[in-house]
């Protein structure tokens, strides 16, 4: 890729090279028994002095000892938990506990007296330092007992792509028992071989190993070979590139499908409540977005209660937030129906006007109560982070939202199809007078149906609070998309809403890489307009005489 590809490109890489060179020695010394803490202590204490550059040198020096005893100190440093005690300039690890810090000794791990924050100076880190530490930890932990640590170490070395590390890796591979980690180490070794001056056949083998890996890192490493002057490698590199690119194309498609489904699930969640209030009841419910917003704010309130009263149970806050949001939004919905909508039967267009007014009032109410700024809604642990399937990174929050959206959909479908209430709703919406004369209490059914739609919008708000702003404007950003989805799917058809949300999501995500985010959205809108020409009653239109009667 560039001419420097063979030289260590940055300071961290250089340091890593140094460390790896020292590794055998370090292993030797640790085998001989832990170095005396007294020897390490000055090195640790020196971390507290000087600029970022000085700290960086100290980290290198610590790493150079190769003693695993320094690992806790380095980890604390990278997490911002390392402090200097003002009184004696000693470096300690501090964990926040109430107003003060619980201190431990960085080398021995024994607990020290806890101290007020004012008596301590935090040792500052920046990204560059964090990288140095990570590389250092990688070198120190390649033979660690814990497989996960070794895996991380191998990843760090892979990214560093350094020729000097080959011997250390060879030794580590020899000793490695976990096949997954061993594979990673071999890949790290292959990456290093490419950057070394080893013979051509070794490099061709390395290219093979990397092609096997087939991800973007491998792609960029092999591209660098392809662009280099080593013409004897070009053939192998070319073949490997072709292979990886083919693989990448397949993964790109998979990625777009996943992104699309994920976007679709958000659209589905946003729209599904509207599919009831608008689709089934025919209320042009402009306050729908505000119901979503109420759900999100309920989540915020519930989380606040958890934070103050039961911080340990924070991960369960969403479980409490779901019914709470359903109730809050649902009750507000029932209130709106009883207070306003019920006077507007047979005047559906005027519900637009009234609900628009309601939406203004709700927005301002939330703004007046909670303030106009974003509120923090936390992700519980199970919704944080990501995992990988092959080269597809799937974030947990998106996955859970997809699962959640489908669950809500299924539950709603069952409720409408197989329960007494669902039957009543369908009866009332199809023929109000007939239903009333058969003893169905239509006002109650109306109120409950609107409440159900609103409540579902509320629980959608719980989910959306995990990925978007929780602000008074939250609802406004979903209302148009929601109407598009319901109308595109065919008003009054729940399956239509599902298919519409998913297909619009996927279409958007397939267009985005080519057209960009803005144009993709415009194209999807134009598509909806054209599609409605073809099917003037949406995707899943009812056919037959009854429709236009």
């Amino acid at each position, binding site marked *: 890729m560039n001419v420097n590809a063979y030289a260590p490109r940055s300071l961290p890489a250089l340091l890593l090279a140094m460390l790896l060179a020292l590794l055998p020695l370090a292993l030797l010394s640790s085998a001989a028994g832990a170095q005396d803490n007294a020897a390490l202590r000055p090195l640790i204490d020196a971390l507290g002095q000087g600029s970022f550059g000085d700290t960086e040198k100290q980290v290198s020096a610590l790493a150079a000892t190769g003693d695993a005893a320094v690992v806790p100190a380095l980890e604390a440093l990278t997490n911002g938990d390392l402090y200097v005690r003002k009184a004696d300039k000693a470096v300690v690890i501090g964990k926040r506990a109430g107003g003060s810090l619980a201190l431990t000794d960085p080398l021995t791990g024994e607990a020290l007296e806890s101290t007020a924050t004012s008596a301590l100076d935090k040792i*500052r880190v920046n990204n560059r330092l964090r990288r140095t530490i990570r590389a250092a930890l990688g070198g120190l932990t390649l033979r660690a007992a814990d497989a996960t640590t070794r895996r991380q170490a191998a990843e760090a070395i892979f990214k560093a792509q350094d020729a000097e590390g080959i011997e250390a890796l060879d030794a580590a591979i020899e000793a490695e028992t976990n096949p997954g980690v061993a594979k990673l180490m071999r890949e790290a070794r292959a990456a290093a071989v490419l950057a070394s001056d080893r013979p051509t056949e070794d490099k061709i083998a390395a290219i093979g190993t990397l092609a096997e890996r087939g991800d973007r890192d491998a792609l960029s490493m092999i591209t660098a070979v392809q662009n280099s002057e080593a013409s004897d490698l070009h053939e192998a590199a070319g073949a490997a590139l072709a292979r990886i690119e083919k693989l990448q194309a397949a993964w790109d498609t998979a990625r777009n499908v996943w992104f699309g489904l994920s976007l679709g699930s958000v659209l589905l969640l946003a729209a599904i409540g509207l599919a009831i209030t608008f689709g089934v009841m025919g209320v042009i419910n402009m306050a729908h977005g505000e119901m979503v917003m109420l759900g999100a704010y309920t989540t915020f309130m519930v989380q606040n209660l958890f934070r103050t009263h039961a911080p340990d149970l924070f991960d369960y806050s969403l479980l409490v937030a779901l019914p709470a949001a359903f109730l809050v939004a649902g009750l507000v919905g029932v209130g709106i129906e009883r207070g306003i909508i019920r006077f507007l039967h047979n005047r559906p267009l005027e519900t637009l006007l009234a609900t628009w007014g309601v939406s203004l009032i709700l927005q301002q109410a939330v703004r007046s109560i909670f303030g106009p700024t974003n509120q923090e809604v936390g992700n519980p642990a199970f919704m944080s982070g990501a995992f990988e399937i092959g080269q597809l990174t799937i974030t947990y929050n998106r996955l859970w939202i997809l699962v959640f959206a489908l669950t809500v959909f299924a539950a709603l479908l069952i409720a409408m199809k197989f329960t007494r209430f669902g039957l009543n709703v369908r009866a009332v919406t199809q023929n109000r007078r007939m239903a009333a004369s058969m003893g169905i209490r239509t006002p109650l059914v109306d109120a409950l149906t609107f409440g159900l739609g609103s409540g579902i919008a509320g629980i959608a708000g719980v989910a959306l609070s995990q990925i*978007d702003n929780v602000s008074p404007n939250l609802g406004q950003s979903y209302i148009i998309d929601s109407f598009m989805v319901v109308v595109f799917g065919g008003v009054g058809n729940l399956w239509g809403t599902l298919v519409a949300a998913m297909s619009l999501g996927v279409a958007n995500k397939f267009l985005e890489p080519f057209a960009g*985010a803005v144009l993709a959205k415009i194209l999807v809108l134009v598509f909806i307009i054209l599609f409605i020409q073809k099917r003037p009653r949406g995707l899943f239109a009812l056919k037959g005489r009854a429709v236009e009667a």
Partner: protein
Amino acid sequence: MTMFSKKFFAGMALSGLMATTAVTGAFAQEETIKVGILHSLSGTMAISETTLKDVMLMLIEEQNKKGGLLGKKLEAVVVDPASDWPLFAEKARELIQVNGVSAVFGCWTSVSRKSVLPVFEELNSLLFYPVQYEGEESQRNVFYTGAAPNQQAIPAVDYLMNEEGVERWVLAGTDYVYPRTTNKILEAYLKAKGVAEEDIMINYTPFGHSDWQTIVSDIKAFGSAGKKTAVVSTINGDANVPFYKELGNAGIKAEDIPVVAFSVGEEELAGLDTGPLVGHLAAWNYFQSVDTPVNGEFIEAWKAYIGDDKRVTNDPMEAHYIGFNMWVKAVEKAGTTDPDAVIDAIVGVSVPNLTGGYSAMMPNHHITKPVLIGEIQEDGQFETVWETSGLVVGDAWSDYLDGSKDLIADWRKPLNCGNFNTATGKCGGSGS
């Protein structure tokens, strides 16, 4: 109501109704100096601007405690332009013509400023604009107390390049004029520094963009090309939360691909769990975490005023703090609130900023400021990791853009020009 009834004429209900507004304004009999506050309290921008309205009310209240200005009390006139750009112009006109304010503190977005500019020019009043912006402007009636690109963007890039060894750049922004211009300047700057075309990726997204999956994945791909990569984000307000959430969840750590943002401050972070974002950066002229006595007082006063211990302070608030004090000082210097006199008096006025130094109003109506780079911390604050050694003078016209590198602004006599062309020696831009 006598005046009112005199003004009311039958058949002209329209004008009659209008006159009520005019009259209510004229009724405040007490001799005060009026200060207009033109920040959106509803609509999309309320999220950022409401705080600025509150900080202005606090500053005015404090000034009144100190005895007001020129022996008179200050009176705040608050209106809500509702994030509606033409309404900004209407409300500005109302503040000046109907309420008779002496100066207006307001606007956030570039478009709102552009919308009111002609009004301030026509009615010859004063606007203090407190937000970082794209530059390429210097108007006689406007004082730019936020950062110009050279007070924010360029130092940030320098930092990443020199301190973090970044070689590959993603310039991601919302598609409007501030990101466009900033990215243009940065692109020219980076190229001048020898960065190759293929090492710069520019991406624009619509306002309020909430689905960042594709872009985050693209950034990840761009960053895996083997060179140290950073994202320079000019993503606007609302879109930031979902962007950072996606970034955090996708496992992009600051050590791998740092993101430096110019529109993300303490307020924006307040809506986020910053745990996964530690180490990402922002460039501003002020952080709440700056440890100076004057900042401590300011934060304390703010929390007391707003009655909420969790509220944060941010850069545009400091800009209003500076701007308001400059105006007060200039009025005292001129002995009148007359706009022309204040415009003449304010250049060269220097007031303490909150970071421990002094900021001065320059002849181009921009101010001097220090530039700070901060890393996001676990607690939603920034920790300064780098700062300029001295103050940086706000540059109205960028040195890195073709159209404006020859332009300077100087509102002192005899130049008295916002776009003086040093190449042609004429006032009036780069044209003939």
